[in-house]
């Protein structure tokens, strides 16, 4: 039973891989776009001659890139199929929605890692003499993992939007992503934001994940000293993933009641 589900979720991994392969031109363009974005932000640090700021911006750019790639692959689970016209066929198949989403998540993470590694390499080429001697790799890896899982739930919730709003759903996902970027302290400390925005900052998992990665990479803080960043991420992962699945099920049912999966044909 479990292996059957795992195999079925691999179907989505393989299919998404095939899609990336066939749309390789787009993927390459997107990679260049992301790398250029990350570099241009980092050059702000160079301009100000502040090595710490440079590092802070770089870490923000790279890690945000990772999170947003993971986010979009999961959030677009539905919209991609709606666009291709295959949504009804996938929904008819004998797989649980959790299996479906698991496949999407797995591919999103692998793709995100590959993508981000490429950008990291570009950074190293441009800034070869960055000193990361005091970095604590365990902290960095821990926050990569924690950050990924805490983001999955939010991405699932975003994936629901195209189910509920046939035309606007994909655009709303986009808005959500940009708000997360704004409030999560990716390039600046959240303290510079207006008070009401800082409330949102505390609700975004990215705030804690990026803070954790930064402290581990720049200051070499051991993971054990970062419990203040760890527990919100754990709670968000544990709460949001099941909630996302549940909400997805509800949204699917609503779509089937109101005929929003597809209407023509």
């Amino acid at each position, binding site marked *: 039973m479990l292996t059957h589900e795992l195999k079925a979720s*691999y179907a989505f991994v*393989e299919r998404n891989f*095939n899609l990336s392969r066939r749309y390789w031109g787009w993927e390459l363009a997107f990679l260049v776009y992301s790398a250029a974005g990350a570099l241009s932000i980092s050059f702000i640090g160079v301009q100000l001659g502040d090595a710490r700021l440079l590092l802070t911006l770089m870490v923000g750019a790279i890690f945000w890139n990772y999170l947003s790639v993971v986010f979009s692959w999961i959030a677009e689970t539905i919209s991609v199929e709606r666009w291709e016209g*295959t949504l*009804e*066929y*996938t*929904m008819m198949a*004998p797989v649980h929605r959790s299996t479906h989403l698991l496949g999407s998540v797995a591919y999103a993470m692998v793709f995100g890692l590959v993508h981000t590694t490429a950008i990291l390499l570009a950074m190293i080429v441009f800034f070869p003499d960055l000193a990361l001697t005091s970095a604590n790799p365990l902290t960095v890896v821990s926050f990569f993992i924690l950050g990924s899982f805490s983001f999955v739930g939010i991405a699932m919730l975003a994936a629901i939007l195209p189910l509920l709003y046939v*035309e606007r759903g994909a655009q709303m996902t986009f808005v959500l992503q940009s708000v997360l970027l704004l409030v999560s302290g990716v390039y600046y400390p959240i303290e510079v934001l207006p008070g009401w925005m800082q409330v949102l900052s505390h609700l975004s998992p990215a705030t804690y994940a990026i803070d954790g990665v930064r402290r581990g990479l720049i200051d070499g803080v051991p993971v054990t000293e970062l419990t203040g960043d760890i527990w919100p991420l754990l709670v968000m992962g544990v709460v949001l993933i099941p909630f996302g699945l549940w909400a997805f099920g509800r949204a699917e049912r609503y779509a089937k009641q109101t005929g929003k999966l597809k209407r023509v044909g």
Partner: protein
Amino acid sequence: MARIGRTTDEDPPVTATLLRKPKTFVPDRLAVPAEAQPLDAALPALLVEGVTKRFTVGRKKKPVLAIDNVSLRLERGGVFGILGANGSGKSTLIRLVSGLLTLDEGRVEVFGHDIARDEMTVKRLINRVSVDAAFFKKLSPMENLLFAARLYGLDPGTAREDAYAILERLGIAKKRVDRPVEQMSRGMQQKVAIARALLTSPALLLLDEPTTGLDPRSKLEVQAFIEEVRLTHDASIVLTTHDLDEADRLCDRISVLNDGRVVAEDSPNGLKRLVAERHGQEPTLHNVFMTYTGRSLDEDVEEDAEPDDND
């Protein structure tokens, strides 16, 4: 379950997986408990009872009654035709059976399994071909088919072989299966869609206007293939169409659907006899349709001109 070996000197089997299990439609590769028992031969392949579905579009508009208290019964191995003009509710009925829409009222059973209660079991038993061949257009037919195969729990190696065999029978050569679907003609794409459905050995095959929009030759080919499937396999088929000849040729029972309601149901000959005896008309399906729906399929009104949901 043992698979009967294929002899190499034969013609390639049509639906390879179907051929190897000629009479028992127990999907063998999935460990869902309800499927441990073989399908009961006495049960109808499809039972639709008092099904109603309404749609509300926009806030103020009153709901459209797309399917209105429809009942039908398809015996195992039969081909049930649903004949209706555009907008009569054919696709809605197919979607209700496919679990893509929820029922407002009534119930649907597939081989005795309630579609809401035994959702996974039913999903494994059915497959569907819709009027638009829906594929990942940049992926090849084989990639699309193998994706479907994995979702249905089929072994990819076996599925690939089966896919070759089915596609070959449909006139799609092996060298053609690795190029993107978007480079294929509509007719070819529709054949791939049929292959995708057959690959999972459905016990109940739902064909929603499979030949609409095809050129005459592809249309005949697809019809011949449907005929072949029904003759050689233990598949029960629901076929919607607004092509009278197609319904006459392929179906052994026909329901005429008009504004979501069944207005007549019988065998094709029974329906023809009915218009001849009761209404003194020439026994043609055209007259059946005219008599019971008050319109002609030739002057098919496109009442549903609302925008596509794919933007």
